[in-house]
């Protein structure tokens, strides 16, 4: 095969279905990586042609020189060229430039980018980095970034210069020059003589080994494209040590959990972008379909959470690569959907991505249950019960959406079947109850924030209520009304419910001593349902308070027998809308708790 060191075929149907079932092997990943290389080559060539068609001669010369050098490296050192052209920075950069030139970016997005010539000139940094690693002679004009030469995947040579410089290789090695300064680029990333040498800052790396399996990841904080992931964390020596320590422990967990998957992860995850937490205690992580091999994340609080996050983000990368070669959507679907793991409303591609990531995480916790005992086992049980339930629900939504392609339909069906199989695993009652309550809290809060019921249905409910009907009419099967990308409600109660099983001691301390917590929430979390109901009701009667409604409905959910109260469980938003409607129809004060109790009665026709 020309152009690549990776021989492979197109994707076999059985491998496609393995992926859908959460079985990701090194062999399949190698095949996906091959197509990531082809994709990025295609982006570069399309960019080159677009530049010739619609940019100036100078821009065309820059991109031609870089492409020419990369082509030369590819001819003699295909694996080196492949390494640099599959870097996450490369795909992100190429896609961004192409979108820019083809008018696919918004004005604010373009405003955030460097001038076009600098933006395009970054092609030369990839070509230079590949040529340096291959020992191939070259001579390129390269744009400077943050006062130096950024060589993607290798490091940064600071020269305190701006604009453009020159990067070349002769018999003495690689050199960079800008203004009046010239410096030698160290050969090889691990050359200790140059570590921390004058002006040269190599890409920091974190590594780990467990049971003979190694992972080696670069930390990217300088490349301009990483800014798209969020707010980049400071990464000094202390942070380096923390990440190194946590990865070492997480890697032990991952290799023990699933060696086959760990082998695949080690071959894909080349780059971590360290992020700041948006708020203290609120970890974040992300991947991009244009940035193969990169996961951006804040440092998780413990090794188990890091292992879970790596599994989660790894699945996003895999599905992104699959989506590049096989169309999973049949059409653009503008509807928004409920995802049991998100506070916002999701478009269908987002739901598919999240579902796949949670399929992976469900498998992780399934195996982790078998490896743990005591409190760790309890946590694994709850996580498993939560993830399997949420992902299964999402897979069913996907399969029923009517917007997937034939391949997408097969993928969703396989995910659903695998999750259905996993859900038959026995889980202790306590874990199932915890999982069920967290799921209920999330669904109630999400529906109150995002779903607006039909006025006609609410009128029907109001007439029944005012007419003295002992049960509500059977309206549970009415179609879901508009879903809006509404501002999410606060999630503090949800976070505390999670803390209850993840760190019970801290949970106890908080609800006993933390004075800033809402007293109704505190009563709920202490298990004092009567007090919680009274306190939520007072909040609702004092002012419009959706968060209090969510708490009140959750109290009711706790006290409704399994298999009953379907209307309130599936349509909690009816309670709020009905309360508002009754208050406009009559002068009588209506008791929110009584309304919620009434809605939780099953209609006579369904008994």
């Amino acid at each position, binding site marked *: 095969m020309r*152009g690549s060191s990776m021989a492979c075929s197109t994707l076999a149907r059985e491998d496609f279905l393995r992926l859908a079932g959460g079985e990701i092997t090194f062999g399949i990943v190698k095949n996906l990586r091959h197509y990531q290389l082809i994709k990025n080559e295609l982006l570069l*060539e399309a960019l080159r042609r677009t530049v010739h068609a619609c940019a100036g001669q100078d821009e065309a010369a820059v991109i031609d020189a870089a492409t020419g050098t990369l*082509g030369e490296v590819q001819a003699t050192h295909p694996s080196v060229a492949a390494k640099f052209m599959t870097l996450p920075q490369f795909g992100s950069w190429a896609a961004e430039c192409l979108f820019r030139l083809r008018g696919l970016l918004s004005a604010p997005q373009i405003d955030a980018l460097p001038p076009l010539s600098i933006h395009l000139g970054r092609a030369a940094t990839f070509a230079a980095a590949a040529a340096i690693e291959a020992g191939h002679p070259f001579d390129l004009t390269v744009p400077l970034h943050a006062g130096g030469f950024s060589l993607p995947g290798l490091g940064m040579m600071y020269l305190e210069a701006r604009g453009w410089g020159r990067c070349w290789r002769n018999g003495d090695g690689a050199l960079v020059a800008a203004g009046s300064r010239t410096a030698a680029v160290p050969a090889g990333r691990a050359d200790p003589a140059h570590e921390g040498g004058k002006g040269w800052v190599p890409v920091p790396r974190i590594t780990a080994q467990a049971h003979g399996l190694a992972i080696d990841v670069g930390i990217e904080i300088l490349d301009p494209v990483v800014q798209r992931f969020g707010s980049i964390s400071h990464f000094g020596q202390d942070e380096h040590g923390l990440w190194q320590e946590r990865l070492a422990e997480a890697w032990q967990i991952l290799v023990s959990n699933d060696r086959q998957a760990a082998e695949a992860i080690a071959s894909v995850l080349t780059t971590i972008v360290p992020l700041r937490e948006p708020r203290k205690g609120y970890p974040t992580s*992300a991947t991009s379909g244009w940035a193969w091999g990169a996961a951006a994340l804040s440092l998780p609080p413990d090794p188990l959470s890091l292992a879970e996050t790596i599994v*989660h983000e790894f699945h996003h990368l895999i599905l992104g690569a699959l989506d590049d*070669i096989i169309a999973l959507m049949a059409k653009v679907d503008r509807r928004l959907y409920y995802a049991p793991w998100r506070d916002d409303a999701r478009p269908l591609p987002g739901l598919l991505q999240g579902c796949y990531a949670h399929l992976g995480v469900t498998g992780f916790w399934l195996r982790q249950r078998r490896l743990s005992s005591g409190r760790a086992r309890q946590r694994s049980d709850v996580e498993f019960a939560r993830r399997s339930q949420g992902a299964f629900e999402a897979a069913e939504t996907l399969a029923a959406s009517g917007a997937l392609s034939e391949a997408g339909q097969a993928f969703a069906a396989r995910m659903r079947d695998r999750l259905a199989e996993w859900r038959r695993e026995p889980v202790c009652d306590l874990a199932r109850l915890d999982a069920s309550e967290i799921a209920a809290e999330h669904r109630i809060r999400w529906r109150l924030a995002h779903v607006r019921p039909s006025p006609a249905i609410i009128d029907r409910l109001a007439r029944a209520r005012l007419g003295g009907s002992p049960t509500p009419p059977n309206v549970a099967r009415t179609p879901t009304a508009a879903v809006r990308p509404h501002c999410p409600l606060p999630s503090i109660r949800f976070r505390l419910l999670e803390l209850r099983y993840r760190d019970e001691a801290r949970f106890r301390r908080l609800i006993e001593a933390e004075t800033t917590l809402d007293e109704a929430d505190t009563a709920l979390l202490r298990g004092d349902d009567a007090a919680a109901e009274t306190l939520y009701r007072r909040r609702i009667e004092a002012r419009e308070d959706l968060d209090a409604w969510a708490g009140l409905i959750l109290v009711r959910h706790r006290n409704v027998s399994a298999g009953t109260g379907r209307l309130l469980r599936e349509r909690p938003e009816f309670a709020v809308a009905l309360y508002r409607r009754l208050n406009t129809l009559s002068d009588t004060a209506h008791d929110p708790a009584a309304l919620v109790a009434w809605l939780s009665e099953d209609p006579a026709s369904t008994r």
Partner: protein
Amino acid sequence: MTESSGDLENGLAVLTGMSLLDLAKVDDVVLEDALDRLLPEPGEVGDRLWDKGGCAQ
């Protein structure tokens, strides 16, 4: 969903094994056809950024 070989239809298969130099010789129509599969449609999530923002982790 499947081709006669049992492999899945693959939007990039036509370019398999091509180097950058090979790609430079590919006809515009073939190149754009392969690219069309990758570029976002208006209204699609073009940045393909999958984050856990607001996510119930």
